[in-house]
């Protein structure tokens, strides 16, 4: 019987091959961007670089790291990602948990209120005016506070919490647990896969966010990494046009390889998060399997 199970069919081989190829397709763009970034520019423009880097030179990463704007931006982006994700996830979880309770007075109004903001938003300029009047312009918190509650995430979490059997909570309540204890000790551990997913959404959103840093922040040292990266890429593009010479000999970076280095450098930190979150996805799947 075991032999039967272990025996691989041609369909399995096809599957393995297909998934392997699919994996290559997913990974290759990252790999290609990396090898281009460390290759000699002339080799890249001559289309010689494909599988292996040519004329390896890691100096380009040194150049990028040398920019104060990069290190400042990195700090701001890490801060907003860590703090923004922690606060956002906490508040969204609490809101969604409360709203998942059908007995909550005014629940219907509040849910509609949240859905309304999902469909309509104030637009850039009214939002700017509100934020300016709140005194948030040029403060680091402007990168975090306006996006603390995401309607979409709240609705997802609400539907997840609603699917948890009420009996579990009732049993805890019989044991003397209050709402907060139930949320922390019972609901959150059961919800780790969905929390991990939402947390990842928030973190990636914070990491990639550009326009809030551009619109609400004037001070250079508070600009997120993405604003710096856009500046750098634009400077490479504008040097193709009519701007003055602005890079000294050692600062002159070949545009395409630079862009690749920047893209790679800005992608790595957020990619690092995925493996840590992935275990919760797997755990979630296992929970389901055991129950099944």
């Amino acid at each position, binding site marked *: 019987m075991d032999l039967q199970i272990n025996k691989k069919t041609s369909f399995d081989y096809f599957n393995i091959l297909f998934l392997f190829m699919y994996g290559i397709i997913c990974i290759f763009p990252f790999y290609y961007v990396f090898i281009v970034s460390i290759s000699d*520019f*002339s080799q*890249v*423009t*001559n289309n010689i670089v494909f599988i292996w880097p040519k004329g390896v030179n890691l100096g380009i990463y040194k150049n990028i790291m040398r*920019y*104060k*704007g990069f290190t400042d931006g990195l700090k701001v982006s890490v*801060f907003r990602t*860590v*703090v923004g994700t*922690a*606060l956002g996830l*906490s508040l969204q979880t609490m809101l969604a948990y409360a709203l998942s309770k059908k007995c909550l007075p005014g629940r219907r109004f509040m849910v509609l209120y949240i859905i309304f903001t999902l469909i309509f938003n104030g637009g*850039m*300029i009214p939002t*700017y*005016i509100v934020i*300016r009047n709140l005194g948030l312009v*040029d*403060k*680091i*918190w402007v990168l975090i506070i306006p996006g603390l509650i995401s309607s979409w995430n709240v609705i997802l979490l609400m539907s997840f919490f609603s699917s948890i059997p009420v009996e579990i909570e009732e049993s805890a309540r019989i044991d003397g647990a209050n709402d907060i204890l139930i949320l*922390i*000790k019972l609901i*959150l*551990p059961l919800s780790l896969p969905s929390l991990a997913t939402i947390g990842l959404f928030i973190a990636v959103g914070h990491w990639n966010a*550009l*326009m809030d840093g*551009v*619109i609400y922040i*004037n*001070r*250079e*040292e*508070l600009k997120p990494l993405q*604003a710096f990266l*856009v*500046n*750098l890429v*634009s*400077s490479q593009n*504008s*040097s*193709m*046009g*009519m*701007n*003055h*010479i*602005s*890079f*000294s*000999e*050692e*600062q*002159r970076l*070949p*545009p*395409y390889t630079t862009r690749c280095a920047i893209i790679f450098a800005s992608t790595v930190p957020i990619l690092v998060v995925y493996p840590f979150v992935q275990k919760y996805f797997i755990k979630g799947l296992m929970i389901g399997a055991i129950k099944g």
Partner: protein
Amino acid sequence: MKRKISLIIVCVLVFTFILSACTVAGTKSGTTSSDTDTTLQDTKPAEKIKITTAQFLEQSTEDYSINENPYVDFVEEKFNIDLTIIRTSSGQYGEKLNALLAAGDIPDLFISNKTFIAKYAEDGIAMNIDSLKPLAVNLNKNVNEEAWQAAMYNGKLYAIPNQRYDPFPYLSFVNKNFVETLNIDVNNIKTIDDYYDMFVKFRDNFENSIPVTAFINWPLMPLIDAFDAFSYKVIDGELLPNYLQPQYKEWLKFMQKMYKEKLIDQEFITQQSEQTWSKINSGKVGFYSWFWHQDVMVNQGGSRDDWLPIKPALKADGIESKLIYHSPARQFFFIGSKSKNPEKVIEMLDWAASEEGQLFIQAGLEGWDYDVKNGEIVMREGRKGQNMSWRFVTIGMDPPKLTSEKVLGVFAEIYGESGVRNYQAAYEFGGYDPILLNIPSFPDLDKYDFNKMRTEFDFNAIIGNIGIDAQWDSHITTFRKNGGDLLIDSLTKWYNNDYKK
């Protein structure tokens, strides 16, 4: 396990709040910059004037903040001001400026293009500066009258044209090695036929050569005015864009012939600019057009000495053609309607056109960027040509002309002899179309993609996918049907009612 998870969550939250608190403190110390400003202001002379400008700058500021650096210190001291520059990259500048203007945070000085003059004037965002213009002595002396005219709306001046010292920056170059080997004197290349013969010689005498290469946005530039196919013209009572005129058709046919005979780079439509530059620096290209400074080529290891500037071909009637640039003013500077000190803003901008201002932008600061030895300016190691955009953004605008020997000396040191030669050639060979310079924007026509219709036809024509003679009339009919008639009508009305007056 549950206890462990709870502990982790609590730890994360505590850590977050501690971190947040630290950052608040950090932010406060950051904001202390404004607090400190206030404190400093107490000790600063009371008459310091606050000036806020909105600019775009992508270039590095050598790890200095755009608002705290030796250039800003110099400008603040010189004009006794407290300068704040709101900086974004050019890509985000429009949105940032819109947000500032809509919220009523109108900077004292901001930059935009010609299409916004009417809007800013009508919305009361830009200040009417007719009464301030006489204060700009240096600008009045050096900025072209056409550029000032372009900054007017309903007969009133609402902006200061940013006419750079290279108002006509385009230039065409031939490969020095090619012409020397073939014993061609570029001064004898005068007509379109001369150009054509030269390209044929390039192709036939140099193996694997590319007689002409071009950038995707640029293929229309070289030789087009020699066909009289660049300027807008009144034909049969209608003001027609160049690309709807019969002369343009003739130019397309010439380009098609060049392409068919492999005189033009066969990949110019599909290749990236990096590949074009790589070809140019490979020594295989015979002719190309670009900005006079050839900065990308030089940055990628090429040398200006390997290329000779060449005069545009004569028109059929023997008149000199030009390398046409859209406007001598690249952008326009607006003084915000809420500015309390517009005179100070004008003073700063006007200073950029003075000898001292030109020197500041071209050379930088004495003791940091250059030294003066025996009365001569000697650029410091690694400072040649550095930070010019940064200084220009700090003071507000570019000098409209390089007028003094001292400044031209620095300019020559930055660009070398061949760079100066190119600059002078671009000035001599360049021009603009006065009608094109003054055409306003027509917001009602924004829904039509005229450029797409035009370029699709152009590229298909050049690479020989379509017969130009056979398709031209139907192309014009289609273009007119798809918004072209409205465009021509708007242009003609503007021409008759406004421009001619």
